[in-house]
């Protein structure tokens, strides 16, 4: 029973950290662009503001428009419970493995795209169409990255991967892991709508993908979706961090080790956040039809990771 409590706690922790992570990345970018930028915890205020506002719904929208935010937020939260953030051998490890994580996220994207189409505006349609295109092309990369990871670790279950990589750390330096890490990093940028693929900070019709879908949302629905998007970013970062560099994850249930693991986890997130921010300030947004080339680069990286882990075995 205690372990399930821990699981829920981990989920809530991830939930709590998510807006902070988004704010932190924005803050670093602002700093890099020599701007003061908003404080890192600015998103918390935004969420609070949004939760307070009334909801305005389009007359064309159906019940799906109202149900979608809950489904998106729910599925992303479920994933958060599955992904190891501070404690390694999760009791719920048997519940969902890496494939389940990927497909749960796809569930969220699926309903987000549908919600984008529902109000019947051109923006929503454009956003959904582009979002689904990118999600569809990113799928094979994720699957192959999982294949590469699973080969190395001997299982697709997150807990088992973490424990195996903890058991023999040299695995993390094998080419299979490194290539898989690179592939997954590119996919993260694509899935969470970061710069080279989609510009999170603008509402310019030509460039926005993720923003276009949620144009019609307002009030608590918008809050839920924004929060879910932040949570998704955190999930990807924790996947990148904990699956490839699991050192620092607590393996015993003592409060001190948990606290220690928490700080290390925040440190990893911060590091990844800085890397993303630096990357976003250096690179410009790709035209939509250049994105598949980027994703095919990541696909090749994942494929090489699998082949290398095959040959080296």
């Amino acid at each position: 029973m205690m372990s399930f409590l821990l699981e829920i706690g981990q989920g809530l922790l991830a939930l709590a950290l998510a807006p902070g992570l988004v704010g932190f990345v924005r803050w670093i970018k602002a700093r890099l662009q020599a701007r003061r930028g908003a404080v890192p915890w600015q998103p918390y205020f935004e969420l609070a503001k949004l939760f307070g506002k009334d909801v305005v719904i389009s007359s064309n929208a159906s019940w799906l428009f109202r149900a979608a935010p809950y489904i998106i937020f729910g599925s992303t939260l479920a994933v958060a419970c599955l992904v190891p953030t501070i404690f390694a051998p999760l009791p719920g490890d048997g519940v969902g493995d890496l494939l389940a994580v990927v497909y749960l996220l796809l569930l969220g994207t699926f309903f987000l795209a549908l919600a984008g189409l529902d109000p019947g505006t051109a923006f929503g349609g454009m956003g959904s169409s582009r979002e689904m295109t990118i999600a569809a092309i990113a799928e094979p990369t994720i699957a192959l990255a999982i294949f590469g990871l699973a080969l190395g670790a001997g299982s697709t279950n997150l807990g088992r991967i973490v424990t195996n990589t903890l058991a023999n750390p040299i695995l993390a330096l094998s080419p299979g892991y490194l290539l898989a890490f690179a592939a997954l990093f590119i996919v993260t940028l694509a899935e969470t709508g970061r710069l080279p693929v989609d510009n999170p900070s603008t509402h310019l019709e030509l460039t926005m993908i993720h923003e276009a879908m949620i144009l019609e949302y307002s009030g608590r629905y918008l809050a839920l979706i924004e929060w879910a998007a932040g949570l998704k970013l955190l999930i990807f970062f924790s996947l990148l961090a904990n699956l490839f560099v699991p050192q620092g994850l607590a393996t015993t249930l003592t409060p001190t080790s948990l606290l220690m693991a928490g700080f290390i986890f925040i440190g990893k997130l911060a590091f990844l956040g800085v890397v993303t921010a630096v990357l976003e300030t250096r690179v410009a947004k790709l035209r939509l039809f250049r994105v598949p080339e980027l994703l095919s680069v990541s696909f090749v990286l994942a494929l090489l990771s699998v082949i290398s882990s095959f040959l080296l075995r």
Partner: protein
Amino acid sequence: MIDTLFIGMILAYGFGASAALVFGRGSIGRWLVAVGSVLGAGAGLAIGIAVIAAGTPVEASIPGLFSFAGGLLVRLDSLGAFFLILIGLGAIPTALYGASYSKTYEDGRGSLRQLGLMLNLFLFSMSLVVMAGNIFTFLFAWECMSLTSYFLVITEANEPETLGAGSWYLAMAHISLVFLTILFLLLSGGDWSASFNSLRSGAAVLSSPLRNVLFVLALIGFGLKAGIVPLHVWLPLAHPVAPSHVSALMSGVLIKMGIYGLLRVVLDLLGGGPAWWGGVVLGVGSVSAVLGVLYALMEHDLKRLLAFHSVENIGIILIGIGAGLIFRSYGLITLALLGFIGGLYHTLNHAVFKGLLFLGAGSVLHATHTRNVEKMGGLIKSMPWTAFFFLIGAAAISALPPLNGFVSEWLVFQALLGGFQIPKPEMAIIMPLAVGMLALTSGLAAACFVKAFGITFLAIPRSPEAEQAHESSWSMRLGMGMFAVLCVALGVLPFAVVPQLSRVMTGLGGLPASPAAFSFNLTLQSPAAFGQMSPPIIALGLVVILGLIPVGMRIFRINQKRRVSATWACGQISQTPRMEYTATAFAEPLRRVFAQLFRPTKELSIDFHPDSKYFVQSIEYRSEILPWFERFLYRPLLEMFHFSARQVRRLQSGSLHLYLLYTSLALVLLLVVARWIK
């Protein structure tokens, strides 16, 4: 007990068929037909479950029939029983749905008598196919199945393109029989009354080149019926013209007969062959999956879109079976079992969610009298139930977690991930490629169904028919509801079904007689603990969280007020349907990404306002994609036959002297042959 059920099935289907003939056009006739097929399918279901539970095959023969070819031998083993259950599960909801759907044919657009009669005969012949015990019964039932389904396809014979599609369908179904005739007669060395048991023992002793030929024949023969890529062209032709509940049956159950046949011949009779067999099946499966979904993406006829998705899902099933065959040839028995189970479970799931989607499309067609997605829109408000069920079907086919599509694709993924245990690296490398293609397929499927569901049901109606759409009658909703419940049940409780599947596969092609100890309690566990997942807990988790969020919102007294106002349309006064995204636009990015395959042609015809060049009266945008197979495989073939027909026609030129010349030349030639050539 099984014999009484068998007779009960025959009587039920007979009753349904005769009711169609006797009562014909009225609603009593439609309902009696439905009752007949439901009872028949139910009896079939019961037989299937009984045989799987008993685990021992059941044999019976009707001596009177086919006395010249070993009598009508019925032999139902667990593999056949599984497919009998599949027929039952597919037939019951569609029959109920069909009862009120076929009301549209009362105005003489199609003959209700023929529809009712052929539906029952079609179901009975499919049941006979899976229960056939010897060659002649199998071939007889196979061709009966093709013939009855042909009549079902041309129910609306007055529509212009129906007959063309019908001829294509019957021609390809007959060609599949041609391949199977060659296959079985080669396998049995010309004895057409050989039972499958004798074939099994006989096949082991055959020379390996002959076995390879038999494998290729089986792949083409059953592939034609299953609709694998080069041979799939009849599917997108036949499904749109057939009545919707018939296309649900055809897509859900008929093409699975191809899978049944492939398993029966390749795995059971030939006992599984060298690794390259599995490799070919896997390759064909992946290509079918990817091309199927890519062509589906470009379709705007709802039922053609679903037909291409059948090709895609058959591809996924073949990936599972191909992987199983490869593992079996390397002796990795548990992994092979996992591959087959993945394939079979996806067969069952596909029958369920594809049936649901076709019935949904049928209700939409019933309401809006059009299949063109570009003319629909906003149907979720006028047809809430159909929209909800279609959404469940769309989510299931896109393999989204709580539903059944996800579980079977997860199993297939786990089987493929087990590929690293294959000793030979060059064979093992196929597995990751298959993983990549399978993942691409599921991604594109999700994109396609967002388009299909979004454009059809959401936003504003794009045509007057879509505005006056009305919800379908209760029995149609009941049919769809049953499929939806099945989708959720099979998704959430796989541990009830998957162990039975391992019992189905026991004893086939050298797989262990006793079912491997798949410890399937609450969680699905692939062998060697490679991957573990517990669908019920995921579903439970999702439900709990979805429940908690609104509760949490109430606890923290989040603002609950909600106002409805017009959509933001960049300041314009009112928003017209023409401002919405269309299906063509939605698929445009993917068409551009895969331009090499589609080679899209674009025609833009603008007729300007007579007064000035700057104002436009109408713009017509037409974009076609290149149908590779029709243009570069089937058209040259047909062209060759037409050319030779034109040459042969010239023989009968009308001149009497020429005719007499033929006779004299024949006489002289044969005299020479008789006299001098021994």
